Every structure is written in C-alpha cells, then in structure tokens.
C-alpha cells in the first residue's frame, strides 16, 4: 500500500515537468504561474512536514499542553504572510528573483550579506532535511510491520525524491503535494476520529478520562518542567514570524501568479491547521493507552498499528511518507539553489551563466541528499537542538526582510550587524542549553536584539545606505 502511494507520488513528480523546458527559472520558481489552488497545495506541502504528523502527536503524548503552540503559530504565520508575501512577490517578479538571498542582494546591494543569509539558510536547512528523512525511515518501518527496515526505506525514498527533483524542480513538489495533502487530510481525520472512538467511544470521553487521571497534562506546562506561558507566548511570536523566513517558504512565494493569489491563500490556509487537531487527538489518546513509550514520536504510528487493519496503516504510512518526501525535496531544492546561486557564483565564480548555476544546483541536490541520508542514519540527540537553532536562526532574517520592505532608512550595515547579533545570541544560548532563557524563547530574545541593533545602526549609518535605498521599488 505504501509502495503504491510512493510510486504514484514519484510518477506525478516526473510528469510535472514533462512538457516544460527546465531552465533555472522553471526549476526554481515554476515560471511564476502557479494559481490559487496549486499555491495552496505547494505551501501546505512545505509547511506540514513530518513534524506536523509525528512530532505534533509526539508532543501531545510527551509534553501535553505546550504542544498547543503549534496550532497558534501556524495560524498566525498566515496572518504575517498575508501582509508581507504579496510585497515580496512583487519585488520578486520585477527583478526576477529566485531565492531568498537574491532578495537581500537586491535590497541591500551587498553580496556578502546575501552570502551570509545563504550560509545561515543552508545550515538551518540541513538538520531540517535530515529530520524529514529520519521521520520517513520510522514511518515506513513501523507501517510495514518492520517489513522494510529503516535504512533501506530511507535510501529508496531519498533516491526517488532526488530523481524527481532533478527532473522537474519545484513543479514536481507542487503536484505531488496535491496527493500528499489529500491523503494527509483523509488519514488525519480517520485516525483522529477512529482511534479515540475505538479506545474510549469518542473524543469527548477520551479527554474526560485524560483530564481525570492526568489533569496537568492538558494545560501548560503539561509534562515539562519549563515550557510555561511565557515560553508559549515568546515561542509563538518567534515561530509565526519565522515560518516564512525559511528559504523554501520564502522562495515558494515567488512561484505565485500574483500577489492576490498569495493573499487568498493566506486567508484559507489556517483551515488546514484544523487537521492538526485530529493528529493531537491521536497523541492524547496514546497517553493513556500506551503509557511509557520511549520515543514520543512513535506514539501515533504505534497506536494506529495496534488499532487498525493493515491497509489503513498503509494509507497512513503512505501519507506520512509523502509528508516527509515533499518537504524534503523542497528543502533540498532550496538549499542547493541557494548554495549554487548565492554562495558559489557570487563569491567563487562570478562568470557562471544561469544554465551553469542550474547544473551545479542539480549536482548539489544529489550531494545534499547523500549528506542528509548519512546524518539520518547516524543521528544523535543534538540534532533536535540543531533544528531549534535553525528555526531561531532563520527568523533572524525577519528584520532584514520586513524593514527592507517598509522602511526607507534601513541600511545594509544595520541589517548585517543585526543579523550577526541575532544569530550569535541564538547560537550562544542554545548551544549552552539556555533555551528557554528564564522562560523566554532564546530565538525570541535574539530577534529583539536583532531588531534593536538593526534599527539603531540604520539610523546611524543612513547616509551610507542612501544608494542602496534608492533601489527600493
């Protein structure tokens, strides 16, 4: 069953690019012609990763109340996107931008800033990519009743996704998302309703049982020692601003047909978040049915395997596999393009043509697949902290983007310094295990420092930045 779904997905991926000539523009931004429906599916495809599937239920299981932050930040990120994405798109279209670094390069006229953005972006993307693959290994392994081992599953899927990314670029991702999102909704709703029903005769009774035996699990800080209300507030703010600062989400906005498409998308997308509630139900049910699981992320799959016939497990597994492959492909694509276009070309080989960049990016796709596969096979606990670092890292782009769009006086030194300050703060705090810092999310604190630095320095250096500011559309 899983094999069928993944096979179908791959076929779609190849077909997506079959009638288009794959130059850099097509490969990265699909020719800028994606209408509302495809846009919705592409964004949904990227934003709802294995984290939403396994991680959300895993957190509901192991941490309880704090997991609600996921509902809040995803919904709020669309509000953010409603305002900033159309503006970003407009700039993208006018100056044929393809990547996030392109934006920084244009707005601030400094290729080192763009390269720095690229480095932070790629560094943050790799653990994210690796996590999708690890998740995928788990999903296929459990859903096939250990029939397919984790490592073979990972290798096969990585080979497949590398293939269709090479063939069709972002179009492949968008079209496979169609299948992925449809499956995800079906799977989530069926298990979200089915599992509580099987074990407790309904969702209400399940929560009553949980409320009675473990009342503190359902509120914050739930089962954790330090994820309380302040953490919630600061983390929600941080991550809702951060979602669209990820290079792949930022870049995906360039594929839209119009700014209006993006706005309509933003209006509708919160509703997709409702499917997460169903995933939560499964996680919460697992608390009482399967206590003491060593790895919370396995909660959803284990419970489904125990409660449902094999074909449904296969369906869920297929949805989960695609939920890993789709984001993995776009993460890979974005990182490869960023690296080739904004780091290699400007700094090392300024004479590269677009076609050569496209070829290099394709090579890098394979390299990145190999690296993440290796990391996924030899993962360690610190990868989680690397991912948190990644999230807190990319959010540091926010002042540069938003002030760059709306404020004439922001200057390049200001943004650069702010970003360095933000990234340094984040690195310090997280690597010394000080997140949350007195209850405040580390990334959030870094963001505040970033904003302050950028603003103050911009005001001081504005005369230097005059020529860059004159490029603002």
């Amino acid at each position, binding site marked *: 069953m899983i094999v069928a779904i993944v096979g179908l997905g791959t076929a779609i991926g190849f077909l997506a690019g079959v009638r288009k000539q794959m130059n850099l523009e097509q490969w990265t931004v699909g020719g800028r012609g994606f209408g509302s429906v495809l846009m919705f599916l592409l964004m949904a495809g990227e934003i709802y990763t294995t984290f939403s599937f396994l991680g959300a239920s895993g957190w509901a299981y192991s941490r309880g109340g704090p997991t609600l932050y996921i509902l809040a930040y995803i919904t709020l990120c*669309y509000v953010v996107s409603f305002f900033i994405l159309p503006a970003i798109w407009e700039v993208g279209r006018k100056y044929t931008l393809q990547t996030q670094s392109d934006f920084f390069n244009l707005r601030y006229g400094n290729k080192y800033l763009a390269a720095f953005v690229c480095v932070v972006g790629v560094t943050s993307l790799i653990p994210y990519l690796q996590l999708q693959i690890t998740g995928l290994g788990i999903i296929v392994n459990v859903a096939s009743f250990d029939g397919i081992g984790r490592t073979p599953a990972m290798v096969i899927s990585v080979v497949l996704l590398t293939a269709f990314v090479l063939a069709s670029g972002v179009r492949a991702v968008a079209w496979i998302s169609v299948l992925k999102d449809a499956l995800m909704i079906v799977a989530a709703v069926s298990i979200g309703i089915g599992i509580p029903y099987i074990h407790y005769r309904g969702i*209400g009774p399940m*929560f009553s049982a949980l*409320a009675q035996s473990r009342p503190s699990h359902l509120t914050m800080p739930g089962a954790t020692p330090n994820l309380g209300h302040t953490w919630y507030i600061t983390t929600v703010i941080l991550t809702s601003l951060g979602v669209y600062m990820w290079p792949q989400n930022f870049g995906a906005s360039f594929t839209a047909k119009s700014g209006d498409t993006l*706005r309509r998308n933003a209006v509708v997308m*919160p509703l997709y978040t409702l499917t997460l509630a169903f995933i939560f139900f499964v996680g919460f049910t697992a608390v009482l049915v399967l206590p003491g699981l060593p790895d919370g992320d396995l909660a959803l799959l284990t419970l489904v395997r125990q409660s449902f016939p094999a074909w449904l497990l296969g369906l869920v597994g297929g949805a989960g596999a695609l939920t890993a492959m789709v984001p993995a492909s776009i993460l890979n694509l974005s990182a490869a393009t960023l690296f080739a276009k904004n780091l290699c070309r400007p700094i090392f080989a300024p004479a590269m043509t677009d076609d050569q960049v496209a070829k290099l990016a394709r090579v890098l796709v394979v390299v990145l697949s190999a690296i993440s596969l290796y990391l996924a096979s030899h993962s360690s606990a610190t990868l989680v902290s690397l991912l948190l670092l990644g999230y807190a890292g990319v959010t540091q782009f926010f002042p540069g983007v938003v002030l760059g769009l709306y404020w004439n006086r922001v200057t390049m030194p200001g943004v650069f310094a702010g970003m360095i300050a933000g990234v340094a703060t984040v690195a310090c705090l997280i690597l010394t295990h000080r997140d949350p810092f007195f209850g405040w999310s580390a990334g959030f604190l870094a963001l505040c420092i970033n904003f302050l630095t950028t603003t103050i320095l911009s005001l001081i250096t504005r005369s230097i930045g005059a020529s860059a500011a004159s490029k603002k559309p």
Partner: protein
Amino acid sequence: MCFSVALWDRIDPMILGLPFNLAWLLCWIVLTTLCMWAAYRVESAREKKDGGAP
C-alpha cells in the same frame, strides 16, 4: 490574543468534549480565517480605488 494565555489555559469548561484551551485555539483558527477574509475584501476594494498600488 496570545497575551491572554493565562486566562484560557485550562481544561474546564469542556466544549464539545474538548478541553477549553484546545477549543479556544480551534475557535480562533476559524475566526482568523474570517478576519483575514474581511481584510482581503478591504484590501481588494482599496486596490480597485488606487488602480493597483498595494
């Protein structure tokens, strides 16, 4: 909205069988869509007046 966390982070009263905090958030997800739809209408009307400048 999120600054009011302390007010709504609790289980009772249960709404449709769901703990209050979860129900609150789910409610707001739908309300956010409605608010944004309204904003979309406002922006579109404004764009028609200005002739396309956002």
